[in-house]
């Protein structure tokens, strides 16, 4: 307990709350003394909230100590990287600043699952509301709007944390490196996400917001619910985490590969992670601009997005704002963001299939390049979210074509997976089940894509539950299920213990069918006319049965995740050790001791062959130094 | 990994050259800026102005920022 209360996490949170509160009161009182500035008597003072949240972030960073080393460097010192638990019990590493990528990866993972549960809880709340027509227990549309908006952005934060978990834990291990290229920056990426999550969650309680996670102006610039500011800031600050971890991963993969590991000998997951990281490190900046603009318009009255203008300015020929501008800048990031989530997930699928089919990955180079292809095409399709906007047809048509083009690299992945499975000697432990589940669910997402990409059909389907079903299938198939597969697969590597196979299978057999029901029925009600983001729907649509079933499926998914958490927690406490290489994998990390040592390998490893040569007699991938007898 | 560890190029003559290179680059940039200003005043062609900006940017990237070090790997002049 003593260790917990003095941990970086607690220090940071206390620091954040204290500095936010102090600066809020100071700024508010200052604003009251200035003539001409109106400060509401009751309720929150919006500009003060914005500034206080930003200052609170610095409060967190300074008091948790993640920037201490950098401050020392600025002062001219050369601080060493601190490795290990610093004389405290082992578990304290996970609540303190630690530069080891495996610790950070697990921190990300725990954070991801924790936020995932909060987001899931919100989803279950509003699914219960939607189970029947009529407002059941929510009091107003505002409450519903806050719930689904928060569900959206919180799940996104959880997914980014999950991507961070996979790339951080696996990236350096798979390429035979000791750590990321910039360990301190890596810790910063994780820790800056914590205060941003706090700000997001606080937004729910301090007013809430009703803009959805997209926050389109002019709704977001005019809504009275000032939780929208916390949403914008929390979203924005999470961007720092994305950018920093993205460029960290790219540099790591370029410079820290083991001897003999050419680019086309990297494990396939690393290709996917690098493709995702490039998107993360670049496009995130544009959403930052979009969010800043909304904050600036709300607090400083800078007119970026309102087409309404002062008549005097208008008469002089000064242009007004345009809400479409936001949609362009926003989707330039937010479409590739989806690829940031799914590319690592698809990488996990490609990584695990050969192990469980005992066959080489079919068309390694094609899969590797298809990841890069998806990333590049992904930067050119953003405006397909705006096919019903006022964008001229000359813009819509190219975006329709580029959108359809995404199907090509995605198809390459599917066909290569099928060819990998064909004639394999398949084994079905839980990770493999989740891999197959991912393929099936991602297929639902993929197949419902082109129909949303052609303008005619999108005019009917845009902003309906069809879209909701489509992206949930994409994100579950592309991220959530592969993430779970990865957790089960590398659990013995992370902890040295084996999870419970039966509970894992129960988790799978509840969650995947549950998800099919949910996603397919969401698509069905969307086709029938159910719009997105509505607190209530008419009985005239005739979709009560479907809605009730969706709610039941959602509850099933929620319970199955709890089963997984119980499974993992109880398995960690087991005393029995897992086998060294439970999956008979060729991957180098399974040739090293579990859990991995501080620097992953006892000495630099050397790659001497292809990564997935299952079934080839005498083929070796990597030479890994075995632990000495001490 | 970079293993370009050049032997040190001591001697002030080389230094002067490097300093002079910086100064010459600065002169070119200054001239381009003035050209840019007058282009902007007299024939405000967006294409021309963007081309001028790209030319200036290329100089800064190449000489001041040393982008070539990325693929040459060295950090010595």
């Amino acid at each position, binding site marked *: 307990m003593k260790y917990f209360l003095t941990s970086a996490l607690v220090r940071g949170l206390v620091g954040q709350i204290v500095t936010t509160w102090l600066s809020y009161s100071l700024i508010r009182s200052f604003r009251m003394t200035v003539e001409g500035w109106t400060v509401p008597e009751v309720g929150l003072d919006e500009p003060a909230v914005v500034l206080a949240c930003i200052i609170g972030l610095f409060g967190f960073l300074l008091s948790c100590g993640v920037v201490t080393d950098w401050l020392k460097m600025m002062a001219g010192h050369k601080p060493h990287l601190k490795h290990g638990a610093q004389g405290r019990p082992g578990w304290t590493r996970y609540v303190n600043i630690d530069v080891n990528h495996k610790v950070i990866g697990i921190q990300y993972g725990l954070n991801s699952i924790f936020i995932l549960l909060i987001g899931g809880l919100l989803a279950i709340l509003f699914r219960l509301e939607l189970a029947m027509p009529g407002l059941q227990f929510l009091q107003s549309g505002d409450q519903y709007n806050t719930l689904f908006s928060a569900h959206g952005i919180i799940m996104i934060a959880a997914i980014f944390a999950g991507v961070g978990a996979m790339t951080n834990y696996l990236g350096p291990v798979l390429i035979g490196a000791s750590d990321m290229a910039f360990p301190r920056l890596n810790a910063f990426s994780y820790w800056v996400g914590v205060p941003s999550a706090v700000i997001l969650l606080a937004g729910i309680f301090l007013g809430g917001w009703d803009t959805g996670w997209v926050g389109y102006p002019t709704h977001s610039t005019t809504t009275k619910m000032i939780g929208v500011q916390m949403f914008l800031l929390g979203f924005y600050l999470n961007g720092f985490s994305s*950018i920093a971890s993205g460029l960290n991963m790219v540099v790591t993969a370029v410079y820290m590969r083991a001897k003999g590991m050419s680019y086309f000998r990297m494990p396939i997951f690393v290709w996917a992670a690098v493709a995702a990281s490039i998107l993360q490190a670049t496009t995130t900046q*544009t959403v930052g601009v979009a969010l*800043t603009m909304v904050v*600036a318009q709300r607090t400083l009255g800078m007119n970026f997005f309102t087409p309404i203008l002062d008549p005097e*300015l208008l008469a002089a020929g000064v242009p007004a704002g345009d809400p479409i501008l936001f949609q362009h800048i926003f989707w330039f990031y937010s479409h590739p963001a989806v690829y940031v989530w799914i590319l690592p997930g698809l990488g996990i699928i490609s990584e695990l299939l050969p192990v469980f089919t005992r066959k080489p990955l079919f068309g390694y180079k094609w899969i590797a390049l298809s990841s890069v292809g998806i990333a590049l095409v992904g930067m050119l399709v953003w405006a397909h979210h705006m096919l019903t906007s006022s964008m001229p047809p000359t813009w819509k048509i190219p975006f329709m074509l580029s959108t359809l083009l995404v199907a090509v690299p995605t198809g390459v992945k599917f066909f290569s997976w099928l060819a990998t499975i064909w004639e394999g000697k398949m084994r079905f432990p839980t990770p493999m089940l989740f891999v197959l589940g991912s393929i099936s669910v991602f297929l639902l997402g993929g197949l419902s894509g082109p129909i949303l990409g052609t303008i005619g059909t999108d005019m009917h389907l845009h902003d309906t539950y069809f879209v909701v079903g489509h992206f949930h299938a994409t994100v579950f198939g592309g991220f959530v299920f592969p993430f779970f597969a990865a957790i089960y697969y590398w659990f013995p590597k992370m902890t040295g213990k084996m999870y419970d196979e039966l509970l894992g299978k129960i988790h799978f057999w509840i969650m995947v069918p549950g998800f099919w029901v949910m996603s397919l029925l969401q698509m069905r009600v969307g086709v029938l006319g159910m719009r997105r983001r509505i607190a209530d729907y008419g009985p005239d649509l005739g979709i009560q049965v479907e809605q009730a079933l969706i709610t039941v499926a959602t509850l099933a998914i929620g319970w199955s995740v709890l089963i997984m958490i119980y499974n993992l927690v109880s398995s960690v406490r087991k005393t029995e050790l897992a086998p060294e290489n439970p999956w008979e994998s060729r991957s180098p990390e399974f040739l090293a001791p579990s*859990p991995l040592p*501080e620097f992953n390998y006892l000495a630099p490893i050397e790659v001497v062959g292809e990564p997935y040569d299952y079934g080839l007699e005498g083929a070796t991938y990597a030479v890994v130094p075995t632990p000495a007898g001490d | 990994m970079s293993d370009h560890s050049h032997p040190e190029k001591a001697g002030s003559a080389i230094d002067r050259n490097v300093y002079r290179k910086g100064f010459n680059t600065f002169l070119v940039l200054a001239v381009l800026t003035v050209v840019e200003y007058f282009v902007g*005043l007299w024939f405000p062609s967006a294409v021309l102005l963007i081309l001028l900006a790209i030319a200036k940017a290329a100089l800064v990237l190449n000489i001041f*920022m040393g982008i070539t070090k990325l693929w040459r790997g060295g950090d010595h002049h």
Partner: protein
Amino acid sequence: MSAVAHGHDDHHGELHNPMEPTRQEQIVMNRFGLWLFCFSEVFLFAALLAARFYLWRDPDVGALRPDLPQAPALIFTCVLLVSSFFMNRAEVAAANEDRATFNFSMASTFVMGLIFLVGVIVLEWGVGGETHILPTSGAFGAVFFAMTGMHAIHVITGLIFVAIVWRNGNLGNYSREDHWGVEACAIYWHFVDLVWIFFYPAIYLIGLAVHIPIH
């Protein structure tokens, strides 16, 4: 529960751990990382430029720009350019352990940067002076303040960076072999200059000038 077998606190003795990168390798990675960061920032400034070209236009006339005073803009652009020159000189000096030139050049860079910053805020933003452009002046004001403001934030970070490197140089922390701090500062400072190379014509030169009425 410990997912990492055992850490050790005492590894950074004299011996280099073969699993960890050497200082030279680390510098190469730092350089690539910094360039990637600059590349990332390109997207930020490109988004602002996109906003400028998207909003500052008229369907009949084409590109527009606010009618802003030209002379100070040209002067401060030149000031930033001169600061870039001194930054380059400081970097060369650091690489050659020429302490005197380094000191003078860093000081000049800092002062020039400060003049630019004060110039933008006092003259262009009109704090304490006569100006027509306000943040509330339609799309002109909004985008103008967003572009110059975002650039000014980078200038401020750059100035802090310059000040720290200047001081550390004085403490003798940079050598011929390892002056990564100076190089990083130089790359960042030149990048800020690079951004202005594109912002200056975009704000002041391209498009038809529209006079903003006092409101």
